[in-house]
């Protein structure tokens, strides 16, 4: 998020969280490190 803002994007925010690794062979690794899927919104200023 900081990288996006630093580049110049505005209104940067998460807009949804998902659990794409559920029931995969990597689920335990994802849980261990708190890995989730997210939607990210950002806007280039006018």
């Amino acid at each position, binding site marked *: 998020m900081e990288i996006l803002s*630093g*580049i110049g994007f505005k209104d940067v925010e998460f*807009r949804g969280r*998902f659990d*794409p690794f559920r029931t995969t062979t990597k689920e335990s*690794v994802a849980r261990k490190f708190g890995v989730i*899927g997210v939607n990210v*919104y950002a806007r280039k200023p006018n």
Partner: protein
Amino acid sequence: MAIACPMDLDTRKLHDEIQSIYARVAEDPSGDFHFHRGPDYAAEFLGYDRSALAGLPRQSTASFAGVANPHLMGPIGEGAVVIDIGCGAGMDLLLAAKSVGPRGRAIGVDMTEAMAEKARSSALMAGLRNVEVRIGDAMSLPLDDASADVVISNGVLNLTPDKSVAYGEAFRILKPGGRFLYADIVVGSELSESIRRNVDLWTG
């Protein structure tokens, strides 16, 4: 938090490994992978509209391996120019093409030729003439400055070795006021150097 790439990560090896994995996904999406694929996963895990997916060629949805759903962040808008970074077999790209309509354009970029070819043929099968697919890399997009109204991406930017370059490319190609709607993975804890140097985990 986004995952920072160690200075000594073998980025060439990372690039080659990503190409290899996603070429296999394109060729045989039913193969043995450690991530989900396909339209049922997209609908059940990520909230995609089943009826919209059913209207797309099966070859474009079977290889889908995204991690979230950029289409939930609002309509792209009729007549818009939308870019899909790492379009894969084209599921998100084709949904975007339908959203922008015949007056808009949907341009996909993918570094894997097998995926790009699937996306192209899927667009033809779907009768979508407003779709173009280019070979390219998120770190150096084959697009002009300020040429896009919307940039989307799904599960791709986490694979790039330098997020600031990839995000900067999205910024460069967006028109003023343009939106960047992307899906990615984030980690909730700090990763050790040994983990961040592990190409297998980057591509996982």
